[in-house]
């Protein structure tokens, strides 16, 4: 067992605890960035001027009329930028653009004494545009060869040759939608200037260090003149990894120019129309199977819809390519990936970060091919699982292939899948207008940032003279329970009750150069850094304790705030006494901790290496019921077994699994981003730009019977206290819902029906799928682009 993963006796990690802010959440006392505005005097409010074009040149911008609106203080334009007019890290995101790249692009911002004044001021700004042709769909971008960034390919073996020899070959095309994050708290920044024009920005950001850098670039000042703080976020899900920077820069710029606090809080419409989303993808594929249903080869082309700028599209694409295998051994494979440039919001990180998109292609093709192969989809998936010792197409060994099988078998057993499927078959025979389906799908998800440099973290731990402990770390709290876990890690590492440890807000002047709280890595990285800092302090304190107890420092144990020796005869002293003694001995009572993930390497040009520290595993079985009259459905029961290692905080982890699952089900079945793709006057406008038109899962989408278990005895050698990351992987367990809908729709038709299901599988999509299944088929028309067709039967 590694030192990093080993737990002491009676650790505080592993205890199920509510969120550390739960009592503040329920009373409304918890403060979010926008809640601070009322505590400041004289704050100005910002409002964007959003272009009513999808692609256009700004030929003239005249702010004069805005200044005639009472309460308007300042109109911010490109001329005001002292540094670099760019909000991204790829220098392709002008903060004040001269070319409108998507419908609603903000061309300038108005600051007002009130939000009302800023709004009316923005309406008064006169802008002339010269409209340009636009590309709205990924198909249009492919046709126009409009791509951005570097295309990537992942390959092993000879897929072309293997497809020639395969017993069964299918091909298909599949385009699926993106997803709006719809964190309940929209983007907010609140900037203040202090002495010398230094800036403090409170920001709802997952990546305070990068927000700090971008603010610095825009203001033309070094990073040490900018501090970014994030108290907590009202949800983020990847949407606040890259996207907050520009808003923070606008607020900071306004604060510098006016000397007053500036609050920029997007309303929901602004947030949805301005900020990036999960990438929708287009894919084409050819898959070969042997007579037993083993995958022998896969060729695919994935085109991510990147929107107008690059943002994180390249790493999202890389992760999609690295996850197209999901849990399955594919001996021969070639996957080509590219990023389309379209006139849409700049698509960005979203829980799973391309992994879900890659895996969806695989799970969709398995669901479509199973009936054509005459193999039960549950059996087809299980048969293709990685075996111990096999490697992924990018060359990393799948070290815990047995865990995936263990999750699968446990779900099958505890979910009584065989018995229930027999009951479902019987139910379906007796109900012509209602059908049920039950599907099982696996998840294998690589943990670590693909870019090796990001796999580092820092922490700062203070022990005060009175024995109380304050921890800082570089991670941000967005609801995922990171801070709860970090308190548990610190209490465990120091041997203290949880009540002695407090956590301070995330600030760039406490822990610098942090990575985004993303890639599910928050607890792994920051937990290890905190543990490192605590162990430095503890190491110094056991020296002091050894002296106090008259024993060897090696024999000093600190547990629940009591310092003892190995033998009861050596007596004990309290933590406070130990700390006070150490202070008077001039022992340093604080420490900076650091962690870098060992053993990672990655060559992005050839897409080979060992990019992940380990894989998170999980399996879900979902049962649905579909109404044949409407396509409406209910999610009757879900069983999940998920591998979080030895959980740091079981209540938090179960919450992440359940929430991720339902969010994934939302993406796959309900949430329906619709852009106007017509040639009409609103071409390129997002039609679903409000909660009334973009529907999130509500209580009605929750599984009626929801049973989530953590895989037991799941110690992870390479991670803090034997735990595993949990944020993203469970989202992909929701493939089971989509596959269950496919099976229920197929049950309306004759046995062996292969169902093509749109994504999201809304009631309408399910209706068309089941209606096609139950309608006697005319001979296939020739242009069956979206159909899996038997390309070569041998």
């Amino acid at each position, binding site marked *: 067992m590694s030192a990093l993963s080993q737990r002491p006796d009676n650790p505080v990690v592993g205890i199920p605890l*509510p*969120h550390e*802010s*739960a*009592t*503040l*959440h*329920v*009373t*409304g006392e*918890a403060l*979010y960035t926008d809640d601070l505005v*009322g*505590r400041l005097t004289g704050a100005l409010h910002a409002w964007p001027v959003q272009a009513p074009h999808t692609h256009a040149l700004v030929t003239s911008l005249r702010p004069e009329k805005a200044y005639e609106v009472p309460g308007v203080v300042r109109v911010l334009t490109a001329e005001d930028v002292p540094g670099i007019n760019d909000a991204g890290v790829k220098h392709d995101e002008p903060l004040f653009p001269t070319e409108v790249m998507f419908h609603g692009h903000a061309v300038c911002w108005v600051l007002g004494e009130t939000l*009302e004044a800023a709004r009316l001021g923005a309406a008064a700004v006169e802008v002339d545009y010269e409209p340009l042709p636009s590309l709205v769909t990924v198909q249009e971008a492919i046709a126009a060869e409009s791509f951005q960034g570097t295309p990537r390919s992942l390959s092993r073996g000879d897929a072309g040759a293997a497809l020639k020899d395969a017993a069964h070959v299918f091909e298909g095309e599949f385009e699926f939608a993106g997803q709006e994050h*719809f*964190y*309940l*708290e929209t983007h907010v920044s609140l900037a203040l200037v202090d002495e010398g024009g230094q800036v403090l920005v409170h920001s709802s950001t997952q990546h305070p260090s990068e927000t700090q850098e971008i603010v610095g670039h825009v203001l033309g000042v070094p990073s040490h003149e900018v501090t970014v703080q994030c108290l907590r*976020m*009202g*949800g*983020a*899900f990847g949407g606040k990894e890259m996207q907050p920077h520009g808003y923070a820069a606008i607020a900071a710029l306004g604060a510098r120019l006016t000397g007053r606090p500036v609050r920029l809080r997007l*309303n*929901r*419409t602004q947030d949805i129309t301005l900020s990036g989303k999960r990438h929708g993808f287009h894919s084409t594929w050819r898959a070969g199977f042997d007579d037993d249903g083993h995958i022998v080869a896969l060729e695919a082309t994935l085109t991510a819809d990147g929107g107008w700028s690059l943002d994180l599209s390249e790493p999202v694409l890389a992760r999609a390519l690295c996850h197209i295998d999901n849990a399955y051994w594919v001996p021969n494979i070639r996957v080509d990936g590219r990023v389309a440039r379209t006139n849409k919001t700049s698509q960005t990180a979203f829980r799973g970060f391309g992994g879900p998109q890659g895996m969806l292609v695989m799970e969709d093709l398995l669901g479509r091919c199973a009936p054509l192969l005459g193999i039960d989809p549950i059996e087809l998936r299980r048969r293709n699982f990685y075996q111990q010792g096999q490697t992924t197409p990018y060359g990393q060994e799948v070290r815990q292939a047995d865990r995936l099988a263990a999750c699968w078998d446990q779900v099958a057993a505890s979910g009584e899948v065989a018995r229930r499927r027999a009951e479902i078959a019987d139910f379906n*025979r*007796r*109900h*012509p207008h*209602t059908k049920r389906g039950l599907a099982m799908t696996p998840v294998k998800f690589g943990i670590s940032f693909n870019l090796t440099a990001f796999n580092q973290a820092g922490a700062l731990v203070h022990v005060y003279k009175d024995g109380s402990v304050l921890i800082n770390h570089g991670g941000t709290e*967005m609801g*995922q*329970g990171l801070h709860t876990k970090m308190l548990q890690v610190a209490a465990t590492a120091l041997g203290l009750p949880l009540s002695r440890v407090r956590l301070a807000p995330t600030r760039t002047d406490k822990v610098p150069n942090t990575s985004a709280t993303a890639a599910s890595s928050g607890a792994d990285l920051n937990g290890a850094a905190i543990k490192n800092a605590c162990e430095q302090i503890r190491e110094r304190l056991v020296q002091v304790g050894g002296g106090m107890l008259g024993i060897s420092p090696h024999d000093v144990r600190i547990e629940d705030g009591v310092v003892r020796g190995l033998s009861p005869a050596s007596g004990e002293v309290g933590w406070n006494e130990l700390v006070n003694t150490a202070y008077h001995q001039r022992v340093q009572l604080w420490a900076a901790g650091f962690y870098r993930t060992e053993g990672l390497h990655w060559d992005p040009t050839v897409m080979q290496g060992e990019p992940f520290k380990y894989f998170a595993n999980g399996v879900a079985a979902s049962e649905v019921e579909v109404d044949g*009259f*409407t396509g409406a459905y*209910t999610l009757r029961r879900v069983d999940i077994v998920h591998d979080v290692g030895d959980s740091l905080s079981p*209540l938090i982890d*179960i*919450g992440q699994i*359940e*929430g991720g699952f339902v969010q994934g089900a939302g993406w796959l079945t309900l949430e*329906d981003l619709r852009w106007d793709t017509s040639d009409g006057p609103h071409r390129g406008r997002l039609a*679903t730009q*409000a*909660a*009334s*038109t973009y*529907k999130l*899962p*509500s*209580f*009605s*989408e*929750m599984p*009626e*019977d929801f049973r989530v278990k953590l895989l037991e005895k799941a110690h992870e050698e390479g991670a803090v206290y034997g735990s595993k990351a949990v944020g993203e992987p469970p989202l992909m367990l929701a493939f089971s819902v989509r596959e269950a809908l496919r099976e229920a729709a197929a049950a309306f038709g004759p046995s062996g029906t292969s169902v093509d299901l749109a994504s999201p599988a809304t*009631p*309408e999509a399910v209706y068309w799928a089941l209606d096609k299944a139950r309608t006697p088929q005319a001979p296939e028309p020739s242009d069956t682009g979206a159909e899996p067709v038997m390309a070569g039967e041998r």
Partner: protein
Amino acid sequence: MTDPSTPCVTVNGDQVSLTGVATHTTTLDWLRNRGLTGAKEGCAEGECGACSVLVARPGTTSPTEWTSVNACLVPVAALDGQEVVTSEGLGTSTDLHPVQQELAVRGGSQCGYCTPGFVCSLAAEYYRPNREPAPADADGAVCDHEHGPNGVDLHALSGNLCRCTGYRPIRDAAYALGTPEADDAFAARQQKPPPEARPTRIAVDGAEFVRPQTLSEALGLLAERPEAQVVAGSTDWGVEVNIRGRRAPLVVAIDRLPELRELSFRTGHVEIGAALTLTEIERKLNGRVPLLAELFPQFASRLIRNSATIGGNIGTASPIGDAPPALLALDAEVVLASPRGERVVPLADYFTGYRETVRAADELIRSVRLPLPLAPLVGFHKIAKRRFDDISSVAVGYALEIADGTVVRARIGLGGVAATPLRAVATEDALVGRPWTEESVRRAASVLTTEGTPMDDHRASASYRSAMLGQSLLRLFHAHTHREEVPA
């Protein structure tokens, strides 16, 4: 104590003046500007519930009922003289309310942003006077996946969105709640009368908010100021203010006019006051109009039903309002009042175009009349992406009478397939006089698919809308003539 004539609101027990507050200010913004930042803005259109607060409203089965509403939609001026409680007022982190306690310990909050709203919606359900726990030995009788053993109706939370938890722990918290203790101050408050609806006249920066005391006063005001914006629950107007930036020189609140708040069964018809909220009608009817009983749970969310009125749903004349298809099937009539007197218009003649009606600027909808006896075979089918709280792609209301196997009378109301709600007259004709058999119903269903002029939009395709019309009739037939189950 402030001067009783000064506009004010009692918030968490403190009386707070409204002097100088702009008339378009929402309750949410007003609370937050006062430092009560528990209520959050998530959508500003009454869809997410993050702004939910409690208002002391007249109850159906107790003098007062703590009623959850979306603070983002209600102008604070409309709460003049009223009592509001926010999450901060229910409890503090050192003295949690039972609802807060259950949500906190069960993992009901992750990011916590939606949580104060859930707390208020759930508190309203906790205090619902007719919430009755299932008997201890009940064999799951009232306990299904939408009702807890403690009588909690999950629909109470249908207007609250959570993006983090997946809802299971929130449901568990809701179902774990007991009943209020004997000394519970909020329960005790429900036994006393609610605040009166007092006359309000607020003028700030040239804009006015007026709450008249009587119908005649309201009608006089409308006659004098035809540009006035009439609001009741403000669930529509609030969206206009927040999302489209509309401002009105004069807003007239009619939601507490006594003449508009009666519900009575009379000879030949049921009279439903236009300013009764959907929740109030649901409770007062208590299942006596089965078609409406089917409609209510599908009408928006509990948060919206607590504010939205039946008169408002007709008055906005949206082609996708949920009540009109049901009311058309019920042959409803609209009673319009003006200084000239009253007139009664069949609802089928009321809508004249997209959001246009026969109502004159100086007229108010006083009530809706449903003729008696009610048709015996009814159904309300709403097609939407989401089961709870969605706007319909298509909605169909049915009221049929079948005698000796033959359809003798048919009324079918449609929403979402034209610029106005409309009756499916051709389909009605195709049913009446014909046998209630699969064959003739299939023929009528194919007629129904051709009614209206459905269009493609982000909610549904035109072809799906048409298909759903026909499918709904088949589903109705099936539900009433077959057991779904066929022998194996």
